[in-house]
């Protein structure tokens, strides 16, 4: 139909679809799923790093970490707002997170065992997120693209902070260096798995690329991430835990060992080390806050009545 033609023309011209524009129902649903999953990831992502706020080793590090976790809450807010322009509301999305109908990034189902994990999350997890997200700043849906520009800017700041934490540790005492290496050993493969399964196994890729919601395949992005990390690991004086990681001169890229996708699917299906804990925590905060939200609503109604 004409609407569909117009929609595809906007996409083809690399223009933005805006909330008032007509869009195919599948495009809308797909976007809601993707944006909500991203928002949920920010919210759940507060937990593993939040775990170290109370124990940060200096006051400066405590302030930086607290600010970072606060930024994640902020990202959650922009992203929920972007999703709301597509006609869902936040309470509904929140329920879908808690009851498992919508997912969040599986990376946050791993525990943060030491302070160095805060560094490794910044360097590797935020690093992978940026590689994933930078192309989304050009996504065809306007509110999403604009939210991503802001998110990516802050994420890259976080990534540098994580890198710096690891740099200090790896140039510190032997115990600190061991702590940094241990964290990188544990976070490397889960970070690679963040790009999703290889093509063919990822059901949404082709359509998302046609709609310019997604612009590169999982494997392209993963490769870009690996290539980026190798040089940084050298400066950090830390080893990436993959003996198969070597420069391939012919291809102009690194060969590397794929992550264990069986593990990824186990974690996605709910059986990672922390899935239950993450959802229980979120649920407790949400349900425990019901009386507060009720109070705010009751108060607002009283005030509206008085001023009416």
């Amino acid at each position, binding site marked *: 139909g004409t609407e569909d033609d117009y929609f595809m023309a906007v996409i083809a011209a690399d223009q933005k679809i805006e909330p008032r524009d007509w869009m195919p129902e599948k495009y809308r649903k797909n976007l809601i799923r993707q944006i909500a999953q991203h928002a949920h990831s920010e919210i759940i992502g507060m937990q593993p790093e939040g775990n170290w706020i*109370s124990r940060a*080793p200096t006051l400066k590090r405590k302030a930086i970490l607290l600010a970072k*976790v606060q930024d994640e*809450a902020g990202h959650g*807010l922009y992203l929920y707002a972007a999703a709301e322009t597509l006609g869902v509301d936040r309470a509904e999305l929140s329920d879908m997170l808690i009851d498992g109908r919508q997912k969040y990034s599986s990376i946050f189902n791993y525990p943060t065992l030491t302070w160095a994990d805060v560094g490794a999350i910044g360097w590797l997890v935020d690093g992978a997120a940026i590689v994933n997200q930078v192309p989304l700043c050009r996504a065809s849906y306007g509110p999403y693209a604009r939210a991503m520009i802001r998110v990516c800017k802050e994420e890259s700041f976080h990534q540098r902070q994580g890198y710096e934490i690891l740099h200090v540790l790896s140039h510190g005492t032997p115990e600190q260096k061991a702590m940094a290496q241990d964290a990188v050993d544990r976070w490397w493969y889960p970070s690679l798995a963040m790009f999703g399964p290889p093509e063919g196994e990822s059901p949404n890729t082709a359509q998302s690329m046609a709609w310019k919601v997604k612009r590169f395949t999982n494997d392209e992005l993963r490769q870009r991430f690996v290539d980026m990390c190798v040089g940084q690991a050298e400066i950090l004086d830390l080893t990436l835990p993959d003996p198969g990681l070597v420069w391939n001169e012919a291809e102009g890229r690194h060969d590397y060992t794929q992550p264990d996708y069986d593990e990824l699917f186990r974690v996605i299906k709910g059986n990672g080390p922390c899935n239950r804990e993450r959802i229980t925590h979120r649920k407790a905060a949400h349900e*425990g*806050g019901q009386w*507060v939200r009720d109070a705010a609503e009751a108060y607002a109604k009283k005030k509206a009545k008085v001023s009416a």
Partner: protein
Amino acid sequence: MNAELATADLNLGDDALIAAQRLAEWTSRAPELEEDVALANIALDLLGQARMFLSRAGDEDELAFLRTDRQFTNVQLVELPNGDFAHAIVRLLFFSAYQRELYTAMAGDEIADKAIKEVDYHVDHARLWTLRLGDGTDESHARAQAAVDELWPYTHELFEGNDLRAGWLAAVEPVLAEATLTRPEDGWAPTGGRQGLHTTHLSYLLAEMQVLHRAHPGATW
């Protein structure tokens, strides 16, 4: 720098640091996302104030991470364990209204002048939520009143050695009244914080806060 000022800096730094530590425990646990942002923001402000005061008194990290609870001189109000959200809000109201009086009285002091703008916002945030909770539902009213009753005795310690209580009461009492909350009678007035005599909660808070720093003596982070 005279000794009296250094003691004052320690007191104010410790107050702000312990208050920040308790508030930061709320991170990812607030009743709504906006409040997660707001509480973290207030905790960050307090942490910033703590860093400035402690740095003026000595090395901020040595002071924060290498003293025992018997050497901390914060008021007991800020070290009490977190309760529900009403507890957090009422404590913030009482504490930030005190900080506002104090920083106003310190006008001309570089740190106080900088912090007063932050504290104005903290008082306002606490005031708005006190109204919503006190004058919201029956449940929120009961919880807010319980928090006021529990915390009121600990406010006396804020005014040891100063004459700020009248100003503080003039700020706090109207908020409680507008929130339909009863201002408790004065009675029990626990004390000791300024002399390093704390509730038993502080040493647990410090055990957690200091564990990593202490496990690596002399390390850089």
